[in-house]
């Protein structure tokens, strides 16, 4: 079966969520949201997928305070972050470019990053643009640090980075990313050319597994109708629903 790039990304992220209990997804995250729903649709362990901003059961939360408290209680196993800039130590910049505070380009702000990144065991970084503009040697502003001193309370942190080119894992001891697989049609050179930071590389980099037909059916039949509620434009574009 043919698949859309988005479906490959959904499938790749979903593999990272197997065996978890509670996955939370932030705003403006149709692909991570779809991945969480896909994982839940085939996993007996996943008790809840929370979609921030959703007012519908079973995806809604009891308000935003509840979300943050829930994470601090250790009741959220995975969350997604993105960044205007992400560097090789998994530092995330959601705040802006240039000299703070009067930045040349101001983005939104840190939101919950410098909190959930510390408390949620598996934070998956996801960005749909894989360029040296995004993946920089050093972020201009650390909205949330990728790593912390050993005495800092930090049960959580970066677990993986998914882009349209590849999947990285993050090694918390070595404080750097490792290229785990390259999506079909892309090369190590392409990843290197478009990544501004150094990363670990296995001797031979496997190709990312493509979604099998069962997975695609789950995505199209189970996930698409649900994700169309918070993200109608996305669902229409990818699946015509």
């Amino acid at each position: 079966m043919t698949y859309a790039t988005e479906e490959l990304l959904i499938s790749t992220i979903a593999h990272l969520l197997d065996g978890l209990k509670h996955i939370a997804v932030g705003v403006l995250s149709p692909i991570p949201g779809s991945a969480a729903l896909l994982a839940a649709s085939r996993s007996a362990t996943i008790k809840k997928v929370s979609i921030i901003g959703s007012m519908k059961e079973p995806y809604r939360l009891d308000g935003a305070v509840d979300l943050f408290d829930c994470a601090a209680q250790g009741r959220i196993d995975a969350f997604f972050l993105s960044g205007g800039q992400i560097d090789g130590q998994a530092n995330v910049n959601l705040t802006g470019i240039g000299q703070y505070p009067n930045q040349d380009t101001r983005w939104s702000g840190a939101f919950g990053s410098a909190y959930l990144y510390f408390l949620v065991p598996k934070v998956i970084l996801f960005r749909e643009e894989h360029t040296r503009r995004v993946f920089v040697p050093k972020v201009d502003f650390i909205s949330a640090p990728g790593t912390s001193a050993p005495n800092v309370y930090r049960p959580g942190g970066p677990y993986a980075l998914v882009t349209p080119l590849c999947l990285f894992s993050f090694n918390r001891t070595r404080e750097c990313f490792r290229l785990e697989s390259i999506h079909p049609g892309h090369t190590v050179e392409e990843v290197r050319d478009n990544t501004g930071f150094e990363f670990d590389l296995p001797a031979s980099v496997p190709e990312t597994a493509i979604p099998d037909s069962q997975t695609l059916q789950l995505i199209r039949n189970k996930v698409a109708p649900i994700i169309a509620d918070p993200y109608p434009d996305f669902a229409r574009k990818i699946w015509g629903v």
Partner: protein
Amino acid sequence: MNETITDIISLINQIDDGSKIAIFKDCSVPMSLGRGLIKRQARNLHLVTVPTGSFLPDMLIGAGCVSTIETAGVSLGEFGLANRFGSAIKKGSVTVLDATCPAIYAGLQASEKGIPFIPLRGLIGSDVLANREDFQIIDNPFEKDDPIAVLPAIQPDFTVFHAPMADQAGNVYLGRQAELKIMAHASKKTFVTVEKIVDFNIMDHEELGSASLSHLYVDGIAVASNGSWPLNLPGHYDYDRKTIQSYANAAKNQETFNSWIDIHLGKELNETG
């Protein structure tokens, strides 16, 4: 008739220049009241977005009403960057106190509990913390070698929001937005615009009661029909996407923003003024 029930102009005139005002993120936003503040050319407001902000902070900044904004983030969401906010930061005409979402909530909850500060996880090692002179790191007194951030209580002068209904006693039904209770408890005064004022006591109603704010915390109420327009009021009306898109386009530069505001404040004048 309860003296807290008044008209929107009276509420707007009581919000002095320089006030610290808490506004909820993306629903229950008192847009009518906000346009009123622009119309009366409010100045030097210190906005606290709870915990993030969208159109109203961007509009107030564009109109020159704001000198400081304490926020976990300002954005128009799917409509893009908040350009009046970004432009003001670049120029330095607005001071930004960057925080995280849970830090804003925790600061308000500290004020709600009448405690002067509250510890919070995260933050350590971020440039958010590094740039907040009013945040500190202390040693957890109950554990060796456990640094933790402590944040001062946030006490706004005013919490302002829009809600579905109030009753004659001044109780306000909030619906699912329980965070509005925290904001009202934390603030010196709370002003609410509502779609309607009902004749029964909301607190007496078994199911509405627990999702409502007691009149004890409400200092002013005014009816503002469609008071969240063009934003939504959950369960009552949806976003007016066309108007929001026209704002997002206009707000890309100051001139087109000014024209947009002129048109829409004129409208407001006829509707609620």
